[in-house]
Each structure stands twice: as structure tokens, then as C-alpha cells.
């Protein structure tokens, strides 16, 4: 009994937090999505399924697809950059590791918006990269680096890669060195050890980092707005505009529901991967 009470007290704040800031808002979003918009924003409490029909329009499904593509690309690149970085950090001498990890998270010490604006300074037609390349004679006409998909992917990769480095570093660090030594003692070449011993053990880290980047990217609206020049819309922009400029809360809520559903599926998949990895490790 005492144990139960203790559990309840310990879980209480967490569950309360979840209920208040997660369950209630989601219920509100769902409620909004089945009503009509008010002329000046807000909700007109007339039941309708029109918002769902509208969200299923190819135009908006196309935006979901495009957002998923951009987020997927950003995720892939982030993992490809982060894995070797994390690997190198685990191989560095102990005393350096903390310093290297601090360097990884250093960009977070400045504001997201400022970091994104910095990319505008670098990528624009008269920016550092174009002027630099022109100065050394590599290009004559400036390259279109800004206000397109490329710029958005660069912005997302730059901002979210540190998370992946940390996630993969954590799982690399957890590997039992003896399994690597065993592999080497049995005569496996380095890359075989890497592929068959190291990588499988870091799948949970890759999945955690990857899902993190994907989820943050697909809902992002600042980066596509600033680096995509507003011409390229992602789901986040669409939802943002529904609430803050079109004043169509119900439609914005419906789009949010789609996004939340998508994220839940991904997080569920990630949990499955982590669980399977844990089971295999125990075997």
C-alpha cells in the first residue's frame, strides 16, 4: 500500500503535466476540427466534417508529402553527418570527449532565428558563398542557393544534427567494448566489425535521433518561411497561416490532427525499434 502511494506521488506531477498540456490541448484540437470557422476567427459551433474533406484535397496532401520528403532528406543527411562525428567523439581520448560534446551543442547558445538568418547572409545571391566563389573565379553567375528546397534542407540539417550526434553518441557509448574485441579476436576486419557489431547496437540511437529530426523538421515553419522565402510551404506553415492569418482555426486544427497522427505513428515505430533492440541485447 505504502509502495503504491509512493508511486502515485511520484507519478502524479508527470501525469498531471501530460494531462494538462498534452491530452487537453489534443482534445481541444479535435473538438475544433469538427466545427465551422467564425468570420473573425474563433469557432462557430456548427458541426461539420467539411474540414476533413478539405484536408484530403490533393493540394494539401501534396504539401504533406513534400514536407515529409524534405524532413526525410534532412533526417538522412543529419544521420550521415552525425554518425561519423559521434563515432569520432567516442574514439577520442576521454578528457577530450566532454569538450567535443560541448562544441556540438555550442550553436544552441544562440537563438534559432539568428542562426537561420545567418544562413541567409551566407547563401543569398550577394552572400558569402556566392561572392567567395565568384572572387576565386569558380562561378560567373551567382548560384541560386537561397529560397528553395536546398536552403530549407540545409537549415534543418544544420539546426538538428547536434541532437542526432548526441543520440548516437549515447548509444555508441553504451556498447560493451568486449563485443568489439571479441569480433576482432575472431578475425573480423574493421568494417565487418563496424557493420555487424557496432551499427546494429546503435540502431536505437539512430532511430531516436532520426525521429527527433524528422518530427521537428516536418512541423517546422520558421526555416521554410525564411530560407524557403515563403514560396515553399510545409505543413507547419500551412497550419500557422490558418491560425494567424486566414483565421480558420477549425481547418488549422484539422491539419494539426493529421500531423499529430503522423508523429504518433513514427514515435510508435521508434519505440518498437528500441524495444526489439533491447530484447536482442538481452538474448
Amino acid at each position: 500500500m505504502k509502495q503504491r502511494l509512493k508511486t502515485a506521488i511520484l507519478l502524479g506531477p508527470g501525469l498531471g503535466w501530460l494531462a494538462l498540456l498534452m491530452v487537453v490541448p489534443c482534445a481541444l484540437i479535435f473538438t475544433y476540427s469538427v466545427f465551422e470557422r467564425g468570420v473573425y476567427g474563433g469557432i462557430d459551433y456548427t458541426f461539420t466534417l467539411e474540414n476533413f474533406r478539405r484536408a484530403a484535397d490533393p493540394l494539401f496532401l501534396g504539401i504533406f508529402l513534400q514536407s515529409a520528403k524534405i524532413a526525410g532528406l534532412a533526417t538522412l543527411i543529419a544521420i550521415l553527418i552525425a554518425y561519423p562525428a559521434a563515432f569520432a567523439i567516442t574514439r577520442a581520448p576521454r578528457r577530450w570527449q566532454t569538450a567535443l560534446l560541448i562544441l556540438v551543442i555550442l550553436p544552441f547558445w544562440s537563438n534559432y532565428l539568428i542562426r537561420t538568418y545567418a544562413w541567409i547572409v551566407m547563401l543569398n545571391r550577394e552572400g558569402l558563398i556566392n561572392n567567395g566563389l565568384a572572387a576565386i573565379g569558380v562561378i560567373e553567375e551567382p548560384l541560386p542557393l537561397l529560397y528553395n528546397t536546398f536552403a530549407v534542407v540545409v537549415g534543418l540539417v544544420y539546426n538538428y544534427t547536434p541532437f542526432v550526434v548526441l543520440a548516437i553518441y549515447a548509444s555508441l557509448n553504451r556498447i560493451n567494448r568486449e563485443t568489439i574485441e571479441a569480433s576482432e579476436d575472431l578475425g573480423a576486419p574493421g568494417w565487418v566489425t563496424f557493420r555487424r557489431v557496432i551499427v546494429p547496437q546503435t540502431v536505437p540511437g539512430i532511430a531516436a535521433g532520426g525521429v527527433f529530426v524528422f518530427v521537428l523538421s516536418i512541423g517546422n515553419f520558421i526555416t521554410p518561411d525564411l530560407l524557403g522565402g515563403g514560396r515553399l510551404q510545409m505543413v507547419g506553415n500551412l497550419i500557422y497561416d490558418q491560425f494567424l492569418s486566414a483565421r480558420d482555426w477549425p481547418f488549422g486544427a484539422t491539419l494539426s490532427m493529421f500531423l499529430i497522427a503522423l508523429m504518433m505513428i513514427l514515435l510508435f515505430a521508434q519505440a518498437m525499434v528500441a524495444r526489439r533492440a533491447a530484447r536482442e541485447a538481452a538474448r
Partner: protein
Amino acid sequence: MKTGKVTRMGSAVARVSAVAAVSVVAMSGAALADKIVISNWDGYMPADLLEKFTAETGIEAELALHGTNEEIMGKVVAGGGEGYDVLFVSSPFAEALNNLGLAAPIDHAKVPNMANLYDEAMQLSHDPGNTYSVPYAWGTTGLCYRSDMMDEPTSWNDLLSPSDDLKGKVTMLSTDRWLMGAAALALGKSLNDTSDETLAEARDMLIAAKQNLLSYDDTTFYQKLVSGEATLVQAWDGWCNYGIAENADIKYVIPEEGTDLWVDTIVVTSASENADAAHAFVDYVLGQETGVWVASNILYKTPNQKAMEALDASLLEGFPNMAMQPADMTRYEQLRDLGEGQKAFARTVTEIMAAQ
């Protein structure tokens, strides 16, 4: 026209201060009956204005900030205007507030400085006689361009279907009313026409125009002109002035099809429990000093005749659109509250922005 995306970031700050403002008012109750809360865009009035106002009238005033019209509108509609006494909003939003019964009638007897306004500013189409709103700043929306890189543009079509050498070097405003306004003017339609066929025509036109844009830009378009990234941008006259201030080759022109007359207004909320103090504030803002500050610092024209006549001649020379006469401006159509038409309008804008 004060609007903007950068200020989206500032909106969190504005929200916090608005909440703080509401709680201060709620807690203090009768003890501070003479305290009023004003919501305005950041930097849209002199920083020391409230201090001076309090020193002169003894009325305590607190400033809350909003980033966009839509933001303050959302808050005021949700809360019935509670917690705010005076709002700075663009005219279509003032009109909407009035339609919703959220704007208080302006008692002209308590605003003697109304006499400082131009006659034209007393007869604006959204509110003839200034019955529920008072104009604060006004101007036009047109084309801002690099005269050293292109010939003077004459038509909205120069922006919407640019010549080959301008493709990828033009920007448009993405704030819905002005985005759609460019197409409506090019089509020879009213800015407030929300008929299906006009919306459809405007949509097709703007989706086609999107392919040739460098970007949509509501806040940094003049910097793109200065840096040479863009050659031609859709701009509010005052914002084009920020570019002109940095490069004299930048010029502003109103296309032959016309423009909109935008008006930013001051509204007293019907929820205000300090209507007298709120009116005193409106009167203070209409003084010559504030008007001169707006024109000299924001580089917007103001409907305050007394202020405009006191301006330094060099300001009008350096920024020719500042010298535009009220009679020349008021012949253009104003953006009006679209009422029920807002729904179809917003859908069209969403379709344009979502188009690939």
C-alpha cells in the same frame, strides 16, 4: 502598413506582456482606475510617449505589443476586449471590431486635437466622420525598384509577369490583402471583391506569378533591393523609404492601375472602463509632436495636417512619396472588412500559398 513576419517572434513577448497587463488591471481594480492599457506594434510610437503622457495628464498607461493585426484581433475577439483600452489596428480590422460591437464610439468633444487632421482624414470610407476610429498613419502600396538596374515600372503586370531579366529578382508581400490586391488591381477589379470569378482569376494569376518570385517578403524586401538581390518589389510606401534612405537609386512608384489607401487607426475598446482616460490618450497622440515623430522616424505619412506641415523640407525631398497630398491618396480605394466574404478569400489565399 505595420505588419510582419519577423514580429511573429515578438508575439510571444507581446503575449506575455498582454497577459501581464490583463492581470495587473484585474488585480488592481479600483485602486488604479486611471490606468489604461494600450496595444500597439513594437516601435510604432515614440518610446517616451507614455511617460510624457502620464507626466502631462496624470493617467497611468501601460503598453502591450502585438505583432500583427490578426494577433490582436484574435485576443480581443476571444476576450471581448477585456484588459485593453486603446488598440492600434489597420482600418479593415477597426471596421471588424466595430461590426462586432468591440469598438467604442469616439466622443469628439473629448478629442479636441481631432482638428489637427486633414479634412480628407475625417471622411475615410471605412468610417466617415471618425465615429469609432481615428486615423494614425496612412499611405499607399506600390512598386519599389532599383532605378539604376531597370526602367521605371508602370503596371502591376510588371511585377506579376516580369520580363525575363527580372525573373527571380522580384518579391511580393505575402500578407493576404496586399498579395490579392496586386492581382485585383491588375485585373481592374475592386480590392474588396470576393466574388467567385474574381477570386479564381486572382488565384490563377498569383500562382503563375509565384514561379517568378525570388521570395515572398513582408519585412526585408527593401534590404533585398539595397543588396541587389532583388530589383523590383511590392512595397508599402513607408517601407520603400527605408530602402531609399540607404540607396538613392531606389524609387517608389504607384502603377497606372492604382493602389490601395491603407490607414492604420486608433480604436477605443467598448470594454474600456476608463473611456475618458482612453480618449485623453487618443487626443494626446493626435498632437503635432507625435505626428512629426511618425513622419520623421517611421517615414510614414500621417493624416495629421499640423504635423505634416511642420516637417523638414529635406524629408519631403529625400522621400518624394512623403509629399503626396491627401486628395491624391484618398481617390484610391481602401481595404474594407470583407465580412462573410473573408471565408472564401482566406481559402483562395491558402490555395495560392500551398500551390507548388
